[in-house]
């Protein structure tokens, strides 16, 4: 669905953000794009959708070169931004004006999502709070039924019940033909929804793997306090005891903890890359 080869991009000549970035994202999954602040997550998403142009390398989105911004590509991409300004329309009018760009837009679905979020479509966009506006855009974006759905921090600003509604709506909206990319720091909100993880750091993709492949290689579990061996990638003490990310040499099933994975990745970048590069070759 998305293929990136040797991508180079910089905002300032002397400070390249990406130099030789490679990444493939497949359909049928909800990809979580993670990285520290300033790692270039939003930039990467903009490059994928044709909002920024690469300095070098190649991007293929839905089979197109995104920089060409072909309407046939754009009608199959919806991008939910973290920061946005909305026109001074009612939700009704917003729908009428913008839905024409998306041939698969489904009005019933839009209304259904809105009512699940408890928003009335006669309201003015600018009378809504940030969280409510976001819910309108989420409802609209999902109702567009695009092949590619990009969401930058979708749960920021959502109240507690809305987060649960969001997860339900997302669980019902994904299918084999769709690719969803969610960039987020709120990993606990989306823990059970994301089923593929990409971690970005300093011009590079460190890991990009489906969850089942990660838990095949790594085990997330409690270990005894004085356990030290080279199989441990990361460990921490907490209320839950002594927790660690260890090499899964006994083929154990464990629940992936995204935060732990994130720490483990940054503690052992090279090892982590090697561990998962072997998967590709095997």
């Amino acid at each position: 669905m998305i293929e990136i080869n040797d991508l180079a991009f910089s905002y300032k000549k002397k400070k390249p953000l990406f130099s030789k970035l490679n990444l493939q994202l497949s359909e049928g999954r909800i990809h979580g794009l993670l990285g520290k602040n300033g790692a270039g997550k939003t930039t990467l998403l903009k490059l994928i959708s044709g909002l920024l142009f690469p300095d070098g390398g190649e991007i293929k989105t839905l089979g197109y070169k995104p920089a060409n911004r072909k309407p046939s590509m754009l009608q199959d991409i919806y991008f939910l931004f973290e920061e946005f300004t909305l026109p001074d329309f009612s939700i009704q009018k917003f729908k009428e004006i913008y839905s024409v760009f998306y041939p698969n837009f489904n009005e019933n679905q839009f209304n259904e999502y809105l009512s699940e979020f408890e928003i009335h479509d006669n309201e003015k966009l600018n009378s809504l709070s940030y969280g409510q506006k976001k819910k309108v855009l989420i409802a609209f974006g999902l109702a567009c039924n695009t092949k590619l759905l990009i969401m930058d921090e979708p749960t920021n600003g959502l109240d507690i019940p809305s987060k649960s509604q969001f997860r339900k709506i997302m669980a019902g909206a994904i299918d084999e033909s769709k690719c969803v990319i969610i960039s987020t720091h709120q990993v606990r909100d989306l823990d059970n929804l994301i089923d593929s993880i990409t971690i970005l750091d300093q011009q590079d993709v460190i890991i990009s793997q489906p969850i089942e492949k990660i838990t095949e290689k790594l085990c997330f579990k409690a270990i005894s306090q004085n356990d030290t061996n080279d199989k441990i990638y990361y460990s921490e003490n907490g209320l839950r005891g002594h927790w660690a990310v260890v090499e899964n040499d006994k083929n154990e099933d464990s629940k992936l903890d995204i935060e732990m994975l994130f720490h483990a990745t940054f503690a052992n970048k090279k090892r982590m890359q090697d561990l998962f590069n072997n998967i590709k070759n095997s």
Partner: protein
Amino acid sequence: MEFKEPQAIYLQIAEFVCEKILLENWKTDEKIPSVRELAVELEVNPNTAMRAYEFLQNREIIYNKRGIGFFVSQDAKGKVSVFRKQQFLESELPVFLKNMNILNISIQEIETYYTEFIKSNKPK
């Protein structure tokens, strides 16, 4: 201090389904929720829900009718018990035994509690 780590999500989902079967909320040859319905209810990725159903299908606890959906197998309860017993022996019993050892509890002492428990929880 050591806690039991949470299980992989697909196994938690499988357990949720087993529970429904044991409690007879879902009965033999009855259609169970679709992968999508289950994913929405539990707020999980449909791929994970699918993995749970495949896991249960491999253990012949549920079966798939192509194009129609998943159903509860004959003797699903029996098979759930087998699966649960295996799980208990593999993951819960070791913790139990370890604690017995740490706290110096003899097997005779446990037996007394067990006999009492069985007496007061006689199956109807």
